[in-house]
């Protein structure tokens, strides 16, 4: 292990390390702590400039319920869920199939298609913006949840395919050959053999894509116009314009917007990190 384990250096080192870690963590998270404290502050505190001291009173329930009663935050949240959940399912379904095809079949253009899915991940969104927007208007899907879902599925299928393909590639070919010998059809090989084996990869992808799509701002800006379609990211930004002085509401709104991805991250931490570090550790 590097650096050398701290407990080999004696109890003093352990204690000072502990203290240093806590101080570093507090400094690192100051922006978040501030926003959390402000989300329970009173308006008087804010107008008096008491933004960094202790709140004069804690308005946890008042402020958080005010977000839902005085702003369309509930609709934004619902929209985010309606956009994110189908996207996760759709993108992963498409990518599991495509990843299987790219990993376990030899055909001309295999590597080329794989390269296309990889490259597609890294392009700037702006190169897609005008045609995708026009396409959505043409299809009657502009400013609709369906339009955002369709685009996100298509775009995320690139990353997911890359991911699934590498994961399936690592499964032994003998497994598939044996199944073919038994007369198992290709479709059943996918459903009965591959899918059960790639469950961990599907979980990793699901949490990752959930976070990516939940946090998307650009496409929400480009493809959604009305509050009834806007997800929390774009909604929060529009709130910021409307409620410039109501920092306690903006803060509470920000916390609400972050709550779902953060709790999913904590529940599925291992999967999340496995997804992000794909290929980062093996040469």
């Amino acid at each position, binding site marked *: 292990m590097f650096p050398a384990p701290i407990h080999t250096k004696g109890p003093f080192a352990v204690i000072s390390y502990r203290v240093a870690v806590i101080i570093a963590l507090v400094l690192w*998270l100051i922006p978040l702590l501030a926003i959390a404290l402000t989300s329970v502050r009173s308006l008087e505190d804010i107008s008096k400039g008491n933004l960094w001291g202790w709140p004069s009173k804690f308005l946890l329930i008042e402020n958080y319920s005010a977000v839902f009663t005085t702003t369309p935050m509930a609709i934004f949240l619902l929209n985010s869920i309606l956009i994110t959940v189908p996207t996760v399912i759709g993108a992963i379904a498409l990518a599991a199939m495509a990843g299987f095809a790219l990993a376990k079949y030899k055909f001309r253009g295999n590597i080329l298609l794989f390269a296309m899915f990889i490259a597609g991940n890294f*392009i700037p969104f702006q*190169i897609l913006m005008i*045609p995708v927007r026009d396409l959505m208007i043409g299809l009657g899907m502009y400013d609709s949840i369906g339009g955002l879902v369709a685009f996100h599925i298509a775009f995320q299928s690139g990353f997911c395919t890359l991911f699934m393909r590498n994961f399936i590639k690592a499964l032994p070919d003998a497994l598939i050959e044996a199944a073919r010998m038994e007369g198992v059809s290709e479709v059943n090989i996918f459903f009965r053999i591959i899918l059960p084996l790639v469950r961990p990869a599907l979980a990793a992808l699901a949490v990752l894509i959930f976070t990516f799509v939940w946090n998307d*701002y650009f496409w929400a800006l480009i493809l959604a116009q009305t509050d009834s379609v806007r997800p929390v990211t774009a909604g929060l930004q529009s709130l*910021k314009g409307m409620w410039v002085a109501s920092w306690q509401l903006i803060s509470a709104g920000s916390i609400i917007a*972050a709550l779902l*991805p953060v709790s999913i*991250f904590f529940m599925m931490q291992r999967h999340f990190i496995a997804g992000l*570090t794909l290929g980062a550790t093996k040469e």
Partner: protein
Amino acid sequence: MDAIMTSPVSLSRPAVQRSFWRRHEKTLAPAMFLSPALFAFLLFVVWPILSSVWISFHEWDGLGPKIFIGLDNYRELFSDDKFYVALVNNIKWLILYLLAPVGGLIIALFLNQQMPGMRLIKALFFFPFVISQVVVGVIFSWFYDPNFGLLNVVLNAVGLPSIAPLGDEHMVTYAIIVAGLWPQIAYCMILYLTGLNNVNPELIEAARMDGCKGFPMFWNIILPQLRPATFIAVVVTVIGALRSFDLVAIMTNGGPYDSSTVLGYFMYEQAIFAYRMGYGAAIATVLFLIMDIYIAFFLVSMLRKEAE
């Protein structure tokens, strides 16, 4: 094919009776599995790229007819001061964003200890990456607020005058980059923590036996083994820097006086607010070409690894 032909099932029935699908299953299956993802990707990613390049040769307000003007958009772009402001800002992003792998590595080395509670601590350090850039942007614009932001509280406390980073054209881009570095460092930290986890312990022990420790140990033994993590960290950081849009849009809208604009935001502004789709497409194409250098670099090294 052979596998099916020699399987007991296919031998028990004459080949002619088997359906077309069954006979060509192994050739058709990959096409069938691939087609939904391929169709979606071609429709919403590949075709729009080509279409954008095509639009960049036109004058178009988004509604009326497209007028072909050849390279005029590009000529205009290369003589547009704002383009150079955006380009220079993108370069600033690119250079300063490379502090993220460095910072991530430092934090990872600091946190790479096994103690009760360390997993939670690491997860909390990773926090900024999980939350949306919109929230990051909101938090930091508040941090920088000239009247009550924490930055000025701290500056005043040490006897320095207040500043307004987001209102100052010389400071604004740096102020936004700092906000962007926060989640980016968290991301790189996770990559390095995973990398450190997989460092060969025998190699470390052997080096320790030889009396190697501290910085020489890090430089000669550890860092080479972290190469895959460094590679991914640099790639995602460079791409992230070139893609920067969210924070600029949230924190400043490119202002003051367009001083914090980047190519991604400049394009959006021209297309959406100025109704200049052709010009916007030209900006997007230039950004795309710049990014292609990095994408090609990534693809080549990834496919080379693949071939091994």
